[in-house]
């Protein structure tokens, strides 16, 4: 979790206006979903990997670890797209060409879509996502809730990690029954402390004249039209190329 957040804050494209990254990557994500996956997905995957590693300067290892996140889900789900079940006469499993093709297209589509998401989360810090949210009319109170949660996640995470280490050192996770008990204690302790923290935060803010709104300075970013146009142009190019490829193959 910290690795993703770390790269999002330190990569080379950190200072860009979020729209310059959101719009091209978002449209590429949509292209991945609607165009035939077998020709589009490899192009998208290559393009996004290049943009992430070469462009934004995120280490390849970080990109690979993000791409591997849904691997378990794909490994469990995909084989069963290929296998088909028939209950007509008992349980009857068989492989079909259609099923195999479905499994293959789903895998490459998911991987390509994942690369778009990976690019976005590795180059754009979470706070940059807030402006578009405001644009689409999410209430200010809810946005503030999101920012507060973002801050508190890291506070609580550290606490959970420390508690977990302390319990492990005292053999709290040596058996399954003990693990359940230890984890229960850890979680309930965390909950109690979270509420306490919320109350302290509230008292502290009230003392400083809190009226239900936290005002912070947002760094001003200038939208660079050339960069946005280049990004969208490249996306168009990927779309056109995959269309040509699809026609050439069929």
């Amino acid at each position, binding site marked *: *979790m910290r690795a*993703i*957040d770390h790269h999002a804050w330190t990569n080379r494209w950190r200072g860009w206006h979020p729209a310059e990254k959101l719009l091209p990557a978002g449209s590429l*994500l*949509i292209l*991945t*979903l*609607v165009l035939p996956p077998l020709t589009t997905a490899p192009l998208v995957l290559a393009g996004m990997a290049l943009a992430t590693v070469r462009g934004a300067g995120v280490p390849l290892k970080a990109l690979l670890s*993000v791409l591997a*996140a*849904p691997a378990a889900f*794909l490994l469990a*789900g995909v084989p*069963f*797209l290929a296998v*088909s*079940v*028939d*209950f007509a006469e008992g349980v009857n499993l*068989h492989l079909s060409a259609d099923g195999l093709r479905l499994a293959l297209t*789903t895998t490459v*589509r*998911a*991987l*390509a*879509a*994942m690369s778009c998401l990976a690019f*976005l*989360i590795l180059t754009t810090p*979470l706070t940059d*996502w807030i402006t578009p949210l405001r644009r689409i009319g*999410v*209430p200010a*109170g*809810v946005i503030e*809730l999101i920012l*507060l*949660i973002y801050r*508190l*996640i890291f506070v*609580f*995470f550290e606490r*959970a990690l420390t508690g977990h280490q302390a319990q492990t050192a005292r053999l709290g*996770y040596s058996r*399954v029954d003990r*693990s*359940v008990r230890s*984890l*229960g204690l850890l*979680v*309930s302790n*965390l*909950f*109690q402390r*979270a*509420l306490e923290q*919320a*109350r302290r935060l509230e008292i502290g803010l009230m003392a400083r004249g*809190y009226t*239900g709104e936290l005002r912070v300075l947002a760094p001003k970013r200038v939208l660079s039209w050339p960069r946005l146009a280049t990004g969208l142009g490249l996306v168009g190019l990927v779309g056109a190329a995959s269309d040509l490829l699809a026609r050439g193959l069929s």
Partner: protein
Amino acid sequence: MHIAEGFLPPLHAAGWTAAALPFVIVSAWRVNRLMRDQPQTKLLLAAAGAFAFVISALKLPSVTGSCSHATGTGLGAILFGPAVMALLGTIVLVFQALLLAHGGITTLGANVFSMAIVGPWIAYGVLRGAQGLNAPLAVSVFLAAMLGDLATYTMTAGQLALAFPDPASGIAGSFVKFLSVFAPTQLPLAVVEGLLTVVIVNFLREYSGDELQILKFPSPTVAVEARS
């Protein structure tokens, strides 16, 4: 169990987003009004959201050897009620996609529907039902958390079945297929989560009666008992 980014075909992704949207909007509106009327609830909700995210990142003791995580769906529904959970769950799922790369943007709607809407409502309904039947608190909490978890998992299997019907036996066959693929990890997980939630609720009753009162814990007698 998050459906991975790009796994669902575009129409299904859009459909589940449309299905989840009204719930989330109503929940956002209610939470926003709650925060305006009582500013102190904002920090409480923020702490709850962060807490839900952190426990979902904790590894559960696993029985089958696969790596599994708590969902916190049942606990959240028991403590905060399903109306609030729709928004809080959505925010947590967005954070999971953006900070942990679990789930995704296109599959957010489907994941919200199963984890932030169906799971909490079932858990809450079971809790209320069991309390109505005068079941002991530990039993009703266990059932609520476990069945909430199972409802989430069944819903996800249903979503996958609708998206990928089996060529031979159709949606029903595909549903059975996905249910059985995920059962070996999800069934023990649901039991563990149920036990865990009982441990947590017991601890909270013993040590945080005041906090439970602030939350208007669903059974007034419980909160009073905890205070005395």
